């Protein structure tokens, strides 16, 4: 069981350059597998271009109460990088003028940022259509000061998106830590009790499923059916939609793949499941990711790999939607994670 981030452990893989090297060497250098750029060129989709911005995703920091084994952020209690109020103010300026219909706050555990509530308060006044907070559920149970989060979310009409790797305790705790399942169930019950996730309710509660190992997610619709059935029968819990998300081979998941000798097989599986139809809708084409220190990235994964946007607007302080429009997306072999099978994004399948 992992208890510290790669950064804290001073692992080789804490270095994003090292990760990018791994993703370009070996089977990709030898030509056993085609590089992502070549693959998408086969269907004339290279270079990938940014379309109209629809989702602004802001990472409030890498601090988290959990240390999940698969975490692509390498988050944990030992990460101190969190967004300052000054950067939040710059983000608010952008939120006020953006044409994006969705604002998506993520982390780490975004709630651990001391200015989180102030920021949500301010951002919700702008009246963005869909205001998402990615909450890991256990944060609500981790400390008394977070106990009223469900009510706080409700009063700001926040759309809650939470991770739940399985409907059984065994598989959940293995990926996310001992006790996570029971705490998540408690948190979900509290959210249900105030109206979140109930069929027909405007208080949206969606769950995210990541496979708990070196395999790809199955069909999103059937997984959603199984999750709904089990959570309802076993715990009387309801939710709206399930997003099945593929684990991308970066950060702690890459570390796990290598340590368990699954890296090559996993890359083969991703490439084999490559679906050109998914390329059209990969999330970088309509999303922009802002890091805790205000830099702009094509997606949360590129943020973790420290691959900045290919544009003259590199920081939230020089944000310019027109400049960012139609930019070339920065890609590497991790992108195969977004195009496998039905495709994968922070909103689940893309086809």
């Amino acid at each position, binding site marked *: 069981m992992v208890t510290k981030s790669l950064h804290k452990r001073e692992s080789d893989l804490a270095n994003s350059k090292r990760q990018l090297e791994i993703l370009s060497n070996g089977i990709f250098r030898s030509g056993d597998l085609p590089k992502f750029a070549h693959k998408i060129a086969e269907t004339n989709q290279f270079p990938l271009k940014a379309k109209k911005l629809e989702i602004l995703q802001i990472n409030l920091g890498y601090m988290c109460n959990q240390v999940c084994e698969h975490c692509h952020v390498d988050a944990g209690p030992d990460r101190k990088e969190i967004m300052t109020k000054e950067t939040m103010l710059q983000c608010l300026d952008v939120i006020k003028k953006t044409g994006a219909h969705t604002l998506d706050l993520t982390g780490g555990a975004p709630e651990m940022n001391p200015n989180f509530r102030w920021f949500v308060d301010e951002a919700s006044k702008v009246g963005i259509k869909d205001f998402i907070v990615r909450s890991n559920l256990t944060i609500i149970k981790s400390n008394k000061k977070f106990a009223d989060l469900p009510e706080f979310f409700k009063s700001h009409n926040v759309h809650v998106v939470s991770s739940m790797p*399985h*409907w*059984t305790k*065994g*598989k959940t705790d293995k990926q996310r830590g001992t006790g996570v399942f029971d705490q998540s169930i408690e948190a979900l019950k509290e959210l249900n009790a105030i109206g979140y996730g109930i069929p027909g309710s405007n208080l949206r509660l969606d769950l995210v*499923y990541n*496979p708990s*190992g070196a*395999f*790809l*997610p*199955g*069909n999103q619709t*059937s*997984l959603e059916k*199984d*999750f709904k059935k089990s959570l309802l029968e076993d715990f009387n819990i309801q939710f709206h939609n399930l997003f099945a998300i593929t684990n991308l081979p970066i950060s702690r998941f890459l570390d796990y793949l290598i340590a368990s000798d699954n890296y090559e097989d996993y890359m083969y599986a991703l490439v*084999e499941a490559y679906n050109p139809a998914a390329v059209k809708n990969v999330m970088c084409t309509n999303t922009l990711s802002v890091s805790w220190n205000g830099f702009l990235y094509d997606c949360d994964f590129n943020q973790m790999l420290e691959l900045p946007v290919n544009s003259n607007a590199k920081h939230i302080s020089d944000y310019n939607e027109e400049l960012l429009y139609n930019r070339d997306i920065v890609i590497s072999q991790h992108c195969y994670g977004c195009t496998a099978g039905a495709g994968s994004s922070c909103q689940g399948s893309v086809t």
Partner: protein
Amino acid sequence: MQKTYYDPADLKKFGKISEWNEELGKKFFDYYAKVFEEGALSEREKSLIALAVAHTIQCPYCIDAYTGDGLQRGITKEEMMEALHVAAAIRGGASLVHGVQMMNKVNKLDM
């Protein structure tokens, strides 16, 4: 010369059997795909049956394929192992139930 009869990489080449007989190959794969579609049984139930049968016929390709398929569907290892015990019980039972034949014979021949 290849040192073993089975190579995991061959599983991926399964589709190639159609190259030497396209008509029958196509019919087989169409049938196969149809069999595993949701019907009176769910795809999940069918996957577990396939896993149990794979162990009964001891096909390493099928074991590989349906273990992976089960994980993707969120089938737990407890469910998988129970399915295997069903296969094992039927296999063991099939041997033992013939004991009745043996007993009949002994009873007939023995004084």
